[in-house]
């Protein structure tokens, strides 16, 4: 693949995995020809996709064994159901098994997802809880690197998964949060947030802002080479502390936030 210098956000999930792994090391697990797809969507009138929107790619990163889990934002908004959720959780569990045996496989999550797939509801939430457990265990052995650089961003239970990653890398395009703008507007009204107000949204939950807050570690250009370089650096120089354990500083940051006295959004 010659993704050198390409805009990362314009690549599809498979191309992104290629761009991150060492040249010619890409080997896909459960590839589309195996047609391991969601059995829950056809009864609901939705056409399944033969990889269920997640690419599992083994390979190498700087010569070290690796696995990239790349979510396809263009299929059902990158939503997580039973099958693609099991692809991610199951892979992290295998990496953990190997790490405990002294064999390091570097795990990378390419997060382009709105969160739980509503059509698979509680199967999605269970898969995501499996993932959370695996990340918390695995990051004790090897950095778990997350990349938030796609057009969907990273939300819902997968926003929590991102919050557990050892190192997060983001770009101008990436957004990271729990509830996406449309969900906020729907649940709390447009006075709380106008989901069409793009500048306000990016200045609030965009990765540039997240870097300023310390909620991601690395902010880079939307460029495949730059992102790949940042990912390699994250493995060479692992984070020494985990953001999700930074309790006192986080509570102080929240306490210092100027909340409007009325509780109004603006």
């Amino acid at each position, binding site marked *: 693949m010659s993704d050198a210098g390409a805009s990362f956000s314009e690549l599809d999930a498979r191309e992104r995995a290629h761009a991150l792994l060492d040249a010619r090391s890409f080997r896909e*697990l*459960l590839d589309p020809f195996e047609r391991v797809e969601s059995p829950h969507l056809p009864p609901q009138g939705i056409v399944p996709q033969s990889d269920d929107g997640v690419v599992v790619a083994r390979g190498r990163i700087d010569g070290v064994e690796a696995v990239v889990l790349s979510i396809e934002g263009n299929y059902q908004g990158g939503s997580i159901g039973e099958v693609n959720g099991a692809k991610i959780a199951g892979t992290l569990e295998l990496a953990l098994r190997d790490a405990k045996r002294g064999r390091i496989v570097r795990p990378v999550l390419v997060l382009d997802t709105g969160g739980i797939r509503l059509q698979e509801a509680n199967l999605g939430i*269970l898969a995501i809880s499996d993932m959370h457990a695996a990340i*918390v265990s695995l990051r004790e052995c090897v950095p778990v690197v997350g990349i938030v650089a796609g057009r969907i961003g990273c939300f*819902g*239970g997968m926003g*929590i998964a991102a919050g557990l990653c050892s190192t997060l890398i983001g770009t101008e395009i990436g957004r990271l*949060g729990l509830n996406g703008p449309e969900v906020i507007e729907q649940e709390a009204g447009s006075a709380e947030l106008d989901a069409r107000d793009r500048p306000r949204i990016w200045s609030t939950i965009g990765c540039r802002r997240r870097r300023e807050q310390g909620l991601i570690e690395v902010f880079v250009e939307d460029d495949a080479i730059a992102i790949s370089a940042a990912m390699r650096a994250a493995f060479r120089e692992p984070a020494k502390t985990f953001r*999700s354990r930074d*309790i006192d500083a986080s509570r102080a940051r929240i306490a210092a936030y100027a909340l409007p006295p009325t509780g109004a959004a603006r």
Partner: protein
Amino acid sequence: MNRGLAWLRALADGSEGGNGTVRAADVSWDDERARLVCVVPDAQARFPRARAGQVGVEEGWKIAAAIRAAVDADAIDATRGVQPRAIIALVDVPGQAFGYHEEALGLHESLAAAADAYASARLAGHPVVALIVGKAISGAFLAHGLQAGALIALDDAGIEVHVMSQASVARVTRRSEEEVAALANVVPATARDVHAFAQLGALARLLGVENADVPTADDVRKARSLLLQTLRDLRACERGPADRLGNEAAGRTRAMSIRVRQLLEAQWDAPA
């Protein structure tokens, strides 16, 4: 009244577990010590969108602090042979807080902190149980409950386990509410009641009670006995979320979760 607080009071001999939106109380039962944790409504809470018992940007970090404090204290006492106390999440959470300020402050990281604390406590040898006494919904449930080694639920019509309100699912998926409700019969994972959730193999046990809102003395006795039994099981055999796939019901309803893992393992190493 919030069921989490009702059960905390009942199980902890009337303790309120402090004040504010996150409560924690320690109990000693037989040879077990446990810290009970719940999230409760507070009309005076600083963030308006977390006043009805939601897990908001303060609550996730507060849950994490309550659990870490127990883990850290027990790590020191471990040198004197004290076993790590149990952590019990009492779950009645209507959802995460939906608000602009919450997102601005990083609600996802706050929920991650809570999930991390439960998972880390489990990895540090604390048996972690979640007792679902009311609503267990979406991000709030991921932060407060789902990282437990065992989930128990009251067998009660007031239990709800789902990822989004029926009205919102209808809007987002462009269906009528009637269609969404009917779907629960075709795809059990989209149902909301505790029996449907049990069918997914997610629950270690169901507990029948007389009064889920105001537990009777007998309800409390039964709950304590079931919790103790579950804690003994977890001390004998460490379990994590993925072990729910081993439940008999999961073999039927989460068959693809199991199959995908088998295929991954078979393909993990390149053919020689």
